[in-house]
């Protein structure tokens, strides 16, 4: 069994309550931090751990914390990003549902490190049950003296509030989230200034993902250096992977970074292989916005090395032959799935979720969706593929926030790796409405095709 740090006690009955969580060693990190460490010590441990943001961008958390401005007399805020909305990603919901105190404990540790006295957990509005769970957990922690005034007699005060969103993927972008938390439309801000300088209410703010914050607990318990020994290279520690699609055992798995992708997909400890005895066609490894890879390229890099579940290995080959770990939303497609239809579906998602503030994303996402729908429904022409390529190129990198890139990448990758499937749709408009293209040459166990 691989090492678990976040989900160790996931199966213990009552672990969602303070009592059981505490019995299993919960809130020890809070005691350690408040009684024996300074805020700077905590930041230092997180830096040493090598923890990288678990929300998708993979930016080192300790470094992000050290950027926080600390002007005299100005409050600082920690805001937890629990607006989990990236298709394929559902680890934060799982964690908050089953072990809410892991997040609350992490919030206390992190808030202390940053010198925040009011912290918010911004949960997407659809997760109303999880909001109730967190509110209950906060009330329990407060009752036991782990929140509120003068926590454990340390002189440190902290209040945590849960804020519901209203249904907008864009609020997962940290500045859109802050706008939303201020009661405004979720339009991402134009940066600079970054939240570390001027965030919530124009005060210095850190926004971290649920899993990043919860992970500070084992980091404190183990020590940063010890944590950094888990994993490979700059991918340290464990990571929650949301596995979905056509696999035997979909669900949330905690893995040690460095696990071979092949083992993750096929071993019984994790996904358990492809469902219904089918063969694997493709994988989206890190949530819908990262490039889709055909089966051969997800198992092995273009250079023929075994692909590992790490930030570096998944990105090996760049966007030509690689992808990204992203938020760990691992979507597996079997041989019956249609890449064109799925690309259209994702394009519709980004079109629907574009905030509309900047023109390339506002207009371009809709355009891509329409062209993809045209091809999908058997009305496309060959020039549409090149048009699509061109439109995504005009969006990528030219927008205010990363949603533009997130919308462009899946389209680009689908064309890059599955162009023949798009062409088949166009050349066989009627047949494509009744059956799917199938596996073609890119499925395992055939040799990878490297361009």
């Amino acid at each position, binding site marked *: 069994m691989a090492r678990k740090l976040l989900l160790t006690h996931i199966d213990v009955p009552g672990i969602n309550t303070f009592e059981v969580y505490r019995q299993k060693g919960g809130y020890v990190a809070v005691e350690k931090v408040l009684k024996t460490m300074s805020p700077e010590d905590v930041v230092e441990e997180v830096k040493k751990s090598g923890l990288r943001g678990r929300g998708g961008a993979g930016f080192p958390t300790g470094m992000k914390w050290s950027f926080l401005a600390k002007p005299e007399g100005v409050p600082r805020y920690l805001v937890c990003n629990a607006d989990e*909305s990236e298709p394929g990603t559902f680890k934060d919901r799982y964690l908050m549902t089953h072990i809410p105190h892991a997040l609350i404990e992490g919030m206390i540790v992190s808030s202390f490190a940053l010198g925040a006295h009011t912290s918010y957990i911004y949960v997407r509005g659809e997760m109303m049950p999880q909001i109730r769970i967190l509110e209950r957990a906060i009330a329990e922690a407060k009752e036991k003296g782990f929140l509120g005034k003068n926590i454990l007699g340390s002189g440190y005060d902290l209040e945590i509030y849960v804020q519901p969103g*209203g249904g907008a993927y864009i609020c997962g972008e940290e500045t859109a989230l802050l706008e939303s938390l201020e009661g405004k439309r979720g339009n991402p801000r134009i940066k600079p200034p970054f939240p570390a300088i001027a965030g919530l209410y124009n005060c210095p703010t850190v926004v971290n993902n649920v899993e990043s914050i919860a992970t500070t607990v084992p980091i404190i318990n183990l020590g940063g250096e010890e944590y950094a020994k888990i994993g490979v290279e700059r991918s340290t520690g464990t990571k929650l992977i949301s596995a979905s699609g056509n696999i035997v055992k979909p669900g949330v798995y905690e893995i040690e970074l460095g696990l071979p992708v092949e083992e993750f997909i096929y071993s019984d400890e994790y996904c358990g292989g492809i469902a219904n005895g089918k063969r694997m066609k493709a994988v989206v490894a890190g949530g819908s916005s990262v490039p889709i890879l055909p089966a051969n390229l997800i198992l092995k890099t273009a250079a023929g090395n075994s692909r590992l579940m790490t930030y570096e290995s998944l990105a090996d080959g760049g966007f030509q032959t690689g992808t990204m770990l992203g938020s760990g939303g691992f979507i597996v497609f079997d041989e019956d799935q249609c890449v064109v239809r799925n690309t259209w579906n994702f394009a519709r998602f980004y079109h629907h979720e574009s905030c509309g503030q900047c023109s390339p994303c506002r207009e371009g996402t809709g355009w891509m969706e329409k062209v993809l729908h045209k091809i999908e429904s058997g009305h496309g022409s060959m020039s549409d593929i090149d048009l699509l390529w061109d439109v995504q190129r005009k969006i990528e990198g030219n927008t205010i926030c990363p949603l533009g890139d997130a919308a462009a990448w899946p389209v680009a990758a689908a064309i890059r790796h599955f162009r023949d499937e798009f062409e088949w749709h166009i050349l066989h408009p009627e047949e494509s409405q009744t059956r799917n293209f199938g596996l073609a040459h890119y499925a395992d166990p055939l040799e990878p095709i490297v361009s």
Partner: protein
Amino acid sequence: MLSVKQHNENVTFSPELLTKFGEVVSRYPEGKQKSGLLPILHLVQAEYGWVSADAMDKVAVYLNILPIEVYEVATFYTMFLLQPKGKYVLEICRTGPCCLVGAERIMGHLQQKLGVKEGEVTADGLFSWRGVECLAACGFGPVLQIGPEYTFYENLTEDKVDELIDNLKAKTE
């Protein structure tokens, strides 16, 4: 078009609701009460089933902000229903991962079972349904949720949908 001709609903917030509003606003620093807008709109929707223009105007007064600031926000976020809908609004995920495991089939079944198209209300006023984007439950798809508590129904099959709808009907009778 996002506009309404007139509004003649006469909304008065109950003392209980106003207490809840007060609790929400207490979470933010002084002068930042606008932060309470989203939670308060959720409370309003839970109370009335939808968010009317009149209710929005009253919320604006309560938070001491301009009515347009409320309209801007309420129309941005997809969870707020700006028209009255059925008592139960079944929101089913229509995004990629759920579609890999049959969400489109379930949507077709839902439409057939309820006899109304997406966004419409059944004749008895009980049900509406709509496809929504990813609900972050991809490993348990297909999924649907029902407000105002957003209860989740996972790993849906045609039979489970039938059972759910029949149960909801029985509950109301």
